[in-house]
């Protein structure tokens, strides 16, 4: 453990920053340009290089100013790490295969002893079994709480993201009545309530909706005065991008505004999705969102009897997009009459894209989401 550069950080001035990286029992020290940290991938390569582990998959973590061990796995949190490091950026590297995910998170460094010992002695953590989950970038958001700033604290606006057709939205609604304060005093008014959550369904998995929550709005439209069937139809029609505003039956988990302490499950999902909020707000104005509803249009020019067998039937999306690009590049030439039998393949994949005909130059891609 030689520390040749100790104390040198201060003398380097504001332009550079000292990095102390630890992998297993080994430490490396090096410096980075604070103003030009580069990309995460470069940094990752650098770490592999300095630790001489070029072909080992590793997890990168750092300690923030509160002492929490936080992951570095994309440009955003890498930049965050660089910008907050003061004076020194402490990096902890773990092998992916024996990584301890529980090490990350809140107050990890106050539980430092424990965590560090886990990190330091990899075989130690084997004692408690844990669920191995994939990296955050492998996730897609399934739900989020939105509009926290404009809604009353007793209400919660939840957006459910429905991908493909494999997983049910999975909840039931019923008629009921709730007590409201009206100019004539307290009155019982009819309302719509969540009556049941399907086990394993999307709604249940989010943890944001619960039985007996009162449904107030669906995609920005108030449900008062509408029948159960109408509300059902509204929800199903909006199921690709369902935003429901509820009054939770349990008001204890409400978000306390302006004190964004981590801890609530709602917020953690939200914080993983910082970019989604603005376009959700836009979506609340009905009829203005286009991104969620791009119909699939297949334009054929060939004889339907002569469908080239080369046409992809139900392959992965990459291959389809490649075909699109191919069409573009070979614009003026021949377009294979690709009768993509989407009706049949849509069971396994769901796509939102447009296959262009030969006589159109540009692809209209206004933020289409491609999902599997």
């Amino acid at each position, binding site marked *: 453990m030689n520390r040749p550069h100790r104390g040198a950080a201060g003398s380097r001035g504001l332009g550079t920053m000292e990095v102390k990286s630890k992998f297993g029992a080994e430490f490396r020290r090096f410096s980075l340009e604070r103003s030009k940290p580069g990309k995460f991938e470069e940094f990752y390569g650098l770490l592999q290089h300095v630790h001489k582990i070029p072909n080992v998959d590793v997890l990168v973590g750092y300690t923030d100013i509160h002492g929490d061990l936080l992951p570095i796995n994309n440009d955003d949190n890498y930049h965050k790490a660089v910008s907050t490091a003061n004076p020194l950026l402490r990096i902890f590297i773990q092998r992916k295969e024996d990584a301890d995910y529980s090490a990350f998170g809140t107050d990890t460094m106050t539980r430092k002893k424990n965590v560090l010992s886990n990190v330091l002695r990899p075989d130690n953590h084997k004692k408690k079994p844990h669920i191995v989950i994939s990296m955050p970038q492998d996730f897609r958001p399934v739900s989020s709480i939105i509009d926290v700033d404009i809604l009353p604290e007793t209400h919660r606006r939840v957006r459910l993201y429905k991908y493909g057709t494999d997983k049910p939205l999975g909840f039931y609604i019923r008629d009921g009545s709730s007590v409201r304060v009206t100019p004539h005093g307290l009155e019982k008014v009819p309302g719509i309530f969540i009556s049941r959550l399907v086990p394993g369904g999307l709604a249940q998995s989010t943890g944001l909706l619960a039985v007996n929550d009162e449904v107030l709005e669906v995609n920005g439209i108030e449900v008062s005065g509408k029948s159960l069937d*109408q509300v059902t139809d509204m929800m199903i029609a909006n199921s690709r991008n369902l935003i429901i505003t509820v009054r939770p039956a349990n008001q204890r988990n409400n978000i306390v505004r302006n004190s964004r302490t981590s801890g609530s499950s709602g917020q953690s999902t939200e914080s993983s999705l910082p970019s989604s909020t603005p376009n959700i707000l836009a979506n609340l104005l009905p009829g203005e969102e286009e991104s969620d509803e791009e119909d699939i249009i297949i334009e054929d020019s060939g004889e339907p009897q002569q469908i080239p067998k080369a046409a992809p039937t139900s392959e992965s999306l990459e291959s389809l997009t490649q075909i699109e690009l191919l069409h573009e590049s070979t614009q003026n030439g021949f377009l294979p009459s690709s009768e993509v039998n989407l009706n049949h393949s849509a069971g396994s994949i769901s796509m939102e894209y447009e296959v262009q005909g030969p006589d159109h130059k540009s692809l209209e891609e206004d933020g289409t989401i491609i999902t599997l």
Partner: protein
Amino acid sequence: MRRFLRPGHDPVRERLKRDLFQFNKTVEHGFPHQPSALGYSPFLRLMAIGTRSGAIKLYGAPGVEFMGLHEENNTVMQIHFIPDQCQLVTLLDDNSLHLWSLKQHSGASELREEYRFTLKGPPGSPPSATQITAVLPHSSREVLYLGTESGNIFVVELPSFRVLEDRTITSEAVLQRVPEDYCNRRSCELVEALREHPKNPDQILIGYSRGLIVLWDLQNNKVTHHFLGSQQLENLYWQRDGSKFISCHYDGSYTQWPVSGDNRQPEPLENLVPYGPFPCKAISKIYWQTTKNGLPYIIFQGGMPRASYGDRHSISVVHGSQQTAFDFTSRVIDFFIIFSSEPTAEFDDPSAMVVLAEEELVVIDLKTAGWPAVHPPYLASLHCSAITCSHHVSNIPLKLWERIISAGSKQNIHYSNMPWPIDGGTNIAPDPPQRDLLLTGHEDGTVRFWDASGVCLHLLYKLSTVRVFLTDADPNDNMNTLGEDEWPPLRKVGTFDPYSDDPRLGIQKIYLCKYSGYLAVAGTAGQVLVMELNDEDAEHVVDHAEADLLQDQEGYRWKGHEKLKTRDGPVRFEAGFQPFVLVQCQPPAVVTSLALHSEWKLVAFGTSHGFGLFDHQQKRLVFVKCTLHPSDQLALEGPLSRVKSLKKSLRQSFRRIRRSRVSSRKRRGGSGNASEVQEANAKFDQDTLQEMELAPVQRKIEARSAEDSFTGFVRTLYFADTFLRDSSRHCPSLWAGTNGGTVYAFCLRVPPAERRMDEPVRAEQAKEIQLMHRAPVVGILVLDGRSTPLPEPLEVAHDLSKSPDMQGSHQLLVVSEEQFKVFTLPKVSSKLKLKLTALEGCRVRKATVANFGSCKTDDYSENDLAVLTNLGDIQIISLPFLKLQIRYPCIRKEDVSGIASCVFTKYGQGFYLISPSEFERFSLSTKWLVEPRCIVDVPEVTSNNHVHSKSGMENAARKSRGSGRNSGDCGEDERKSGRLMEHALLNDEKVLKEIQSTLEGGKGSYAERNLARSPLGHGLSNGGTD
């Protein structure tokens, strides 16, 4: 941007909307559901029908009809017109009496409820004391006699319904002079019949249910004659001269009684059991009609031998040696005879019998030999076989109209050509602006063509598709062929026949081209027939083709019905629409969509498996396309998905039974002691309560997936000549929309007319659009460069439409259950949309383009979409910008069959079924409005010498009307002519009507308007139902 153009912000458009759109339910067509009472006024020549839902409908000459609804929605038990008045009294099953009047209001008559009344007995008396069983409006028009269950007869004054207690005829008073032994044997019991003496208004005949009949003198308040019947009485009828009356009885007999001055207790003249000697059913009503030639008509209802014919609904007519028992298809509610009502005429001379059966109205011509039926101009039984679909065609060219009528007249030769005998009132509605046809498909494989132009929905022609197929039912097997000397002489009358021989024959889709006379009809077993109108009978072979919609898809098994077997060899067809091509889909699933292009001579059809295109010129199948999803097994199980729900419902009901058993056991289980039982009960109640609370109505929220069943179900087919491939060349195209939200577009190559027979029609798939929301596609439409919908085939060729604009770019409108979407063509990209379900939670059930004209200016009209949602709302949505214009609630959302049956016309009207037998007609347009508008003239009668005074209001109204005219001379004139008319009435009704109509001519006068309003206010204050 769009946000700022919300509807309701442009005052000019708002004003225009008021000139264009207006919602009215105008008239009910067809036969009233569940009729319960019948009445007739020989004076007004109007018929009234009451129903079990409390509706009352008046009918006169074609086009003259009125409707009223009792607020209580109780069954109408009896209807009685006040003699020589425009008033009638109804008795409901809650024992309330209602007085209705026909009053003129802004130039047309209206039916209004004026008073209501419930007879109240003395305090403490049982309800039966005042339960009304018989009603007699006295010819004086001043009083009503009300026979009750207690045997007392109450007298109430009209129109105030004040009970005149001193004139009550008690059963004690009646029994005073009846022989002791008769009295002891039987008490009076309820009053079965009340009949006024035809010549002497001071005498009324009272019949009690146990058989006693008395003649009561109103002047002296005493019984003048006793008639000691021995059988339970059903009804009474006076002979015209008042010298005899006839009574009919529960045992199937009828008795004639003489009425003479000297004998106060006469013996019966004749007692007869017409269908004896074996026990017979009751004769519930009887008529004895005299004729010039001396032989009376005896007409009675029932009386059939109990054992062998007890289930028949019959009315027998006996005239000398002629006797026929008319056998009706459903229960007879009531009937009446139209006979000479002139008081001076010596004989009844019956002309027609009008029978209200439960499911239809039958009128028999009694003047023509053989007593044929009369074809009714209204009250048609739409449901004589259940309606399975309907199709409306507006503005039929005269030529086709006449050909259909002539084909229909050949079918109606067995009807009497007597003019319609119920001809009261005058139709003053303007002539219908155009000829409209409503086609209804029926379960028995027939298509009925109705004249839907005006108020009277009238059957023009009936087409049967059964002949093409081999069915179990042999057409020669006639149930009616009875031997010559068959007794009783039954004869089936009426058309109501709800029993279909083969459900596969049911008609599901109809498409008529009004220019070419081509008709395509598709049915339950995948059969598609193309027909042509032929004015002559013909015998020919129907070309037969099969369309395998599954193509080479494998692993499918059709579990539904088999396809229909066709008849080999030539088939004889009567004049009218004659099939020349039959396409049978394989598997033989119900045809769910149909389109015909008469110019290209193509017919397209779709089922739950796919769709096909057939060239009916070359009689060649052009192509088929399978739309089935591989995982959709349900689509193959046949049309009877009902089976599944039946199974489910059976399971549920078993579960329910089991649960109730369990709970009863639970109850029994705790039978140790009383408190235990109580506890158990309380617990049980709590349990059930909790169960009820825990299991409210729930709805699952589930995104639609591609695996939903019936995604391949073809919902709509559409032919269009548009730009499908590129923007420089347009070509014929076929569009199909499925339940799974897919739209297929096929480019067609139709050879030019001169080579039409030589070259085949070709089709290539050009586009496929998958709507991301996957809702069923219910309509497809192409808008031309001016954003007007493409015209119908041959419309341009017949100079009835501007040719479409082929310069500007076309647009495609796809209507799904959830959204309206406009796409550009030929490159399909979304341009506009209106999300309906996502915003309002309602789904589109029907959407049709309708043309709306302005009521203010003749030259303005526009095309909009008329949309019916699953909530029963009707919305109008503008084209091409898809802005909601207006919304009206129309049908109750629970009325699923009503919503499913709705059809829109091309000019903003529509029809939907309010019962199996009735269409409600509604109008969305200010310009095209078909509603009854008629006048019932009240002749200024003092025809009978015994008319004491006119009933208050009517009289007052008339008087003030006379004096309210501009000058005194005029009023004087009227009074004079009124007196003249009295004579006219006695001689010639027509003359009378003429005079009357000229008098009513000046209806615009200010005074009259004012007057017309005042009785209205009066009616309202009396709780009149509007």
